[in-house]
């Protein structure tokens, strides 16, 4: 059943190219539409260039939202990547 799901986290590191790539590859595995919102900027999580274009930095709040049959799993997967890949030193 289609569902909406979202979760906000605070970045502990900048969202650089490599985590953006990992995030887009992971998001593409889900059939749900997945978006990232930082302030007034919103990007399709499946678009690596869109994710990098957010220019999200450490300390910013980022909202991961998904709509579709696997929305909850998609949000959980993306939040995990954001948490791990932007950890300082990663």
């Amino acid at each position, binding site marked *: 059943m289609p569902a909406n799901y979202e979760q906000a986290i605070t970045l502990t590191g900048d969202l650089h190219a490599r985590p953006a*790539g990992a995030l*887009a590859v992971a998001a593409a595995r889900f059939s749900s539409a997945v978006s990232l919102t930082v302030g007034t900027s919103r990007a399709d999580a499946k678009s*690596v260039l869109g994710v990098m274009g957010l220019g999200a930095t450490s300390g910013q709040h980022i909202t991961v939202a998904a709509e579709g049959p696997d929305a909850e799993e998609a949000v959980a997967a993306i939040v995990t990547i954001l948490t791990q890949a932007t950890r300082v030193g990663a």
Partner: protein
Amino acid sequence: MSLDARVGIVLVSHSAELAEGAAALAAQISGGTVAIIPAGGTEEGQLGTSAAKVQRALKLADSGAGVVILPDLGSAVLTVRALLSEAGDLPTPVELADAPFVEGVVAATVAAAAGADMKAVLAAAEEARHARKL
């Protein structure tokens, strides 16, 4: 097409260093699971393009799911078009993308790494021209 086949990418640049650098960057961002083969410069190591280099790169990039070619500037397109119209023994399908070089290879490679088919990888490359950096 095998279950694990990914669309391959060939980078055709007038500069060997430019093609190699863009390939390395895209490989790191996409996780290293896609064949991204640089074909830059001439056979003599000068600035220019080489149909023979492109042909070798196409073979290396092909794992059965097709190959998308990204040219750096317009005249690389001429080399690729001539090759595609004349040479036999090329990967099928093979498509030339009308896309920005760096953004295009990054977007195409990430799509290929996620298992996208030829049409979707080509679309990812071509949509890269609309991506904003700021």
